[in-house]
C-alpha cells in the first residue's frame, strides 16, 4: 500500500509542477525591460519546463534570418544562476556560453541567415541546499522575443 501512496503523491506533485510551469515564460518576472523588448513580440517558440537543478535540458529552435531575437532565461530565486550555451546544430560549433558573462540571463542575437541552434540550459542553484527530490525542481521560463532587424538593430552595419 505504501508504494502506491508514494506513487500517487509523486504523481500529484509532478502534475502540480507541470501546470504551474506551462506559462512560466509569460510571468512579469520573466519579461525583459521595455528597452530590451523595444518593438519586439513574443515568439511562439517561447518555452516553459519543469526541471531538476544541476541537470541539463536541451532544446532546438529556429532563428530566422533578418531577425533580432532576445532570449531570456528565468527561474525561481534559489535556482540561480542559470547556465546556458548556444550551439549551431549543423556543425556543433558553440556560438555563446553565458559563463563568460557571469551567467547573464538574457542575450540579444541578430541573425543573418536562418539558423537552427541547440540551447543547453542548467539551473546551477549554486547556493541552494535540497533536502530531498521534491525540492530540487523548479520552473524554467524561456521567453523569446523577435523583430525584423531595423537599420539600427543589434547588428548595425554588420548585416
Amino acid at each position, binding site marked *: 500500500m505504501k508504494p502506491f501512496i508514494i506513487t500517487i503523491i509523486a504523481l500529484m506533485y509532478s*502534475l502540480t509542477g507541470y501546470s504551474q510551469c506551462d506559462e512560466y515564460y509569460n510571468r512579469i518576472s520573466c519579461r525583459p525591460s521595455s528597452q530590451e523588448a523595444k518593438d519586439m513580440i513574443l515568439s511562439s517558440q517561447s518555452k516553459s519546463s519543469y526541471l531538476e537543478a544541476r541537470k541539463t535540458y536541451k532544446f532546438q529552435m529556429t532563428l530566422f534570418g533578418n531577425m533580432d531575437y532576445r532570449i531570456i532565461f528565468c527561474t525561481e530565486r534559489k535556482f540561480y544562476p542559470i547556465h546556458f550555451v548556444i550551439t549551431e546544430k549543423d556543425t556543433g560549433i558553440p556560438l555563446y556560453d553565458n559563463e563568460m558573462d557571469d551567467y547573464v540571463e538574457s542575450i540579444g542575437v541578430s541573425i543573418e541567415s536562418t539558423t537552427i541552434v541547440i540551447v543547453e540550459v542548467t539551473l546551477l542553484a549554486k547556493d541552494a541546499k535540497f533536502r530531498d527530490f521534491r525540492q530540487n525542481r523548479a520552473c524554467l521560463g524561456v521567453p523569446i522575443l523577435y523583430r525584423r532587424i531595423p537599420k539600427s538593430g543589434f547588428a548595425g552595419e554588420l548585416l
Partner: protein
Amino acid sequence: MNRSLLIIIAFQVLLGGCRSPRGEAEKSEQSEADSTQYVQELEYLLPSPAEFFSVIDEIGLEYNSQLIRPIESITSFLLYRNQALNFGVYLTDFSYLLLFDKQSEAIIYLYQIQEMAQLLDIESYFDDEFFNKLLASLNEPDTIRSISIEQSAAFFNRMDAIGNKDLVILISSGSILETMYIALNAVDERRITDNTITTIIDLAYIFDSFYLNYITTQPKGDEITPLSEDLLELRKIFNSMAISQVSKAIRKDGNLVLTSEVTHEVNEYNVRKMKVMVNTIREKIVNQAY
C-alpha cells in the same frame, strides 16, 4: 489523460528522486559539474504558422482565398486523426487570414477552430479570455497577430504539460503542411531567385525540426503509417537539397551577431518535386485520406 502515461510520469519522478541523493548541494563545485547530466531528450521548438508568415513576406506572399481549406461541418470529420490533422490546417488558415487583415473571415475560422477543439476535447486550451481578446482587437491587426502568436506558444506549452504528444504531433503535421502549401504557392520553380532559395531553406529547417520531433514522438497505430511514409518522402527531397551552413558569432554592444556561410543544391527540379509532394500530402489531409 492516458492512465499509463500518468504512471510513467510518476515513475520518472520517483526515479529522478533516486538520482538526486540527499545533500547533493553540499558537494563541491567540481563534483557538481561532474554530476551535471542530460535530463531528457532534445526538445524541438517549432515556430507557429503566424510567426513563419510574419518573417517570409519578402517572397511576395499574396492573398488567395482559394488556397485555404473551406469551412466544413465538424460532423464530416469522423476519425480522430483527421480531426487533429484538419484542426492544424485550420489553425494555419486562421493565421493566413490574419496576415492579410481578413478579420471577418478569420473570425469564421476561429469559430471552426473552437468547435473542432471541442471535438478533440482540448477546448480548455482556447479559453474565453483568448477569444475575447481577439474579438476586442479586431480593428488592430498588429495586436491580433501578436495575440495569435502568443496563444500558439501557450497552446503548445499547455499541451506539452499534459503530455498528449500524439495529438500535438498530428495537429503540428496538419499545420506545417498547410504552412508549406501556402508558402510554396508563392514560389515559382521556373524562376529560382535569392528570395526563393531563402524561403526554401527556411521551410527545410522548419520541416527538419518538425520531422525529428515527429519520429521522436512516434505516433502510435498502423493507420498513421501512410502519413509517416509520405513525410519521410518529403524529408528525402529536402535532404537532396544538401543544405548546410557554418555560422560565426560576433559580439557587438553586448549582443551576438550570427553570420553564416550557406551551401545548397536547391534547384528547379527538387523545388518542383517538393511542391508536388507537399500538394499530395495536403490533399490527402484535406480529403481525409489518411
